[in-house]
């Protein structure tokens, strides 16, 4: 009888628990939705702090597993490749001497170039340890956090193009929103910066996936062609100017009153990211608009 009563009580109280928990979730959502960009979210930082060691371990485990299967696969074709390689070896030995000289020269020039780049923007190399646990959004987690100098809104890049921006930082890990996310955006120009007027904004679209992004607001009067390169302008307050975004893969030409519809294939392979670099770059502060500087204007933050 006692157990029946308990069940009855549970059944009566369940709607109350439901309503109170739904209200708690709504409050959290409301706070999260209101938070302006660029501010840390405490819940995210704490969960990341506890989750990053686990994600680090799983990332290493997955790498080891795929290597194991790759080695088994490679073993099958080894004998055939061995014959071919012996033939090529003799040819390559001749080329080796020439290459050594070129390499030495290349190293010297590379050192000079690196020195120049280091003076401009410092970067922190990082490894991707996890991807978004929900299917609905495009974020990645990297194994560098505030202890490495990473901060919110810093740009993340690979050698072949921009990846996204840091949205949450914990001491040993950071969350990065990819440029293919609908909420992400980057100021970009088709062609070379300073030579082209085809300025616009690059952002993701739900139906395009991670392989293509859309470029909006490019004037229909500008000339844009397939295979044109797209670079960052540095006007978005996130990315420094002159970074590669990708190349144009589709253009629907606009008119004098209608913008071009441009699709871009990102330069970075966003679905196979393993190593990235966080640029320790802070964009110059935006100068306030005349309205914001007026003495009697009510500040939105207060």
């Amino acid at each position, binding site marked *: 009888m006692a157990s029946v009563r308990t069940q009855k009580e549970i059944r009566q109280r369940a709607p109350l628990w439901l309503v109170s928990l739904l209200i*708690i979730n709504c409050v959290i959502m409301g706070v*999260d*939705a209101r938070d302006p960009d660029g501010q840390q979210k405490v819940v995210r930082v704490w969960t990341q702090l506890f989750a990053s060691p686990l994600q680090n371990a799983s990332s290493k485990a997955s790498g080891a597993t795929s290597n194991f299967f790759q080695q088994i696969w490679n073993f099958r074709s080894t004998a055939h490749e061995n014959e071919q390689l012996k033939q090529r070896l003799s040819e390559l030995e001749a080329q080796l001497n020439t290459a050594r000289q070129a390499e030495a020269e290349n190293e010297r020039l590379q050192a000079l170039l690196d020195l120049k780049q280091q003076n401009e923007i410092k970067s922190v190399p990082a490894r991707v340890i*996890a991807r978004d646990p*929900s299917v609905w959004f495009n*974020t990645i987690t990297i194994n560098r956090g505030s202890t490495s100098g990473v901060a919110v809104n810093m740009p993340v890049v690979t050698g072949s193009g921009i990846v996204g921006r840091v949205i949450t930082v914990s001491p040993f890990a950071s969350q990065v929103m990819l440029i293919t*996310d609908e909420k992400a955006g980057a100021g970009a120009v088709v062609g070379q910066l300073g030579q082209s007027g085809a300025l616009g904004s690059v952002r993701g679209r739900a139906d395009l996936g991670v392989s293509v992004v859309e470029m909006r607001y490019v004037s229909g009067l500008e000339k844009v062609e397939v295979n044109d390169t797209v670079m960052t302008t540095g006007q978005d307050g996130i990315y420094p100017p002159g970074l590669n975004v990708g190349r144009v893969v589709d253009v629907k030409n606009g008119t004098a009153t209608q913008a071009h519809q441009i699709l871009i294939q990102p330069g970075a392979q966003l679905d196979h990211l393993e190593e990235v670099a966080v640029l320790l770059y802070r964009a110059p502060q935006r100068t306030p608009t005349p309205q914001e500087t007026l003495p009697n204007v009510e500040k939105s933050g207060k």
Partner: protein
Amino acid sequence: MPPLKLAAILIASVALQLSLRAVWPPLVYIDFPLVVIVYIALQREAWQALVVATLAGVIVDAQSGALIGASGFSKTLTAYVIYFAATKVNLENPLLRIPVLAAATVLDSLVYVFVHRLLSQPPSAPVVQTISYKLIATTVVGTLLLYLIDSLVAERSAQRRQFATRRRVARRSTGPLRRR
């Protein structure tokens, strides 16, 4: 369910959800916390199902680009709907769990997308396609997982099933044909 077992299952499901995408990207379509929530709701453990739903949802949201609380909201609602159905209809039969799991996946995803759209933060994935993949993956893997959890931790449901079987046998033995 004892709190320790509950905590262990919750941690395991969240850990799998957070880490398996790195191992093989399509595994993200399996919603492990939802499977656990469905299991607990089917056991008619109302408060446990609701609390686990909120906790798991908030943790997963915090690690994704989603609004924190959106997944908690959808999972809590789903947990209650399943609990309510389980109190009205006997869903102990393993075969019945398949449609329940499928319905839970669809309901959870629809509420999740609706909440994001409501707050002007639309998801970055095509809705119908994603829900379809999620439905297939979560239902197939979830059915196996439910069976696994059942065999590992469920004493009470086993007792309930035994009781139901005994009662059925007893009814048969006192049925009209026997009496003749």
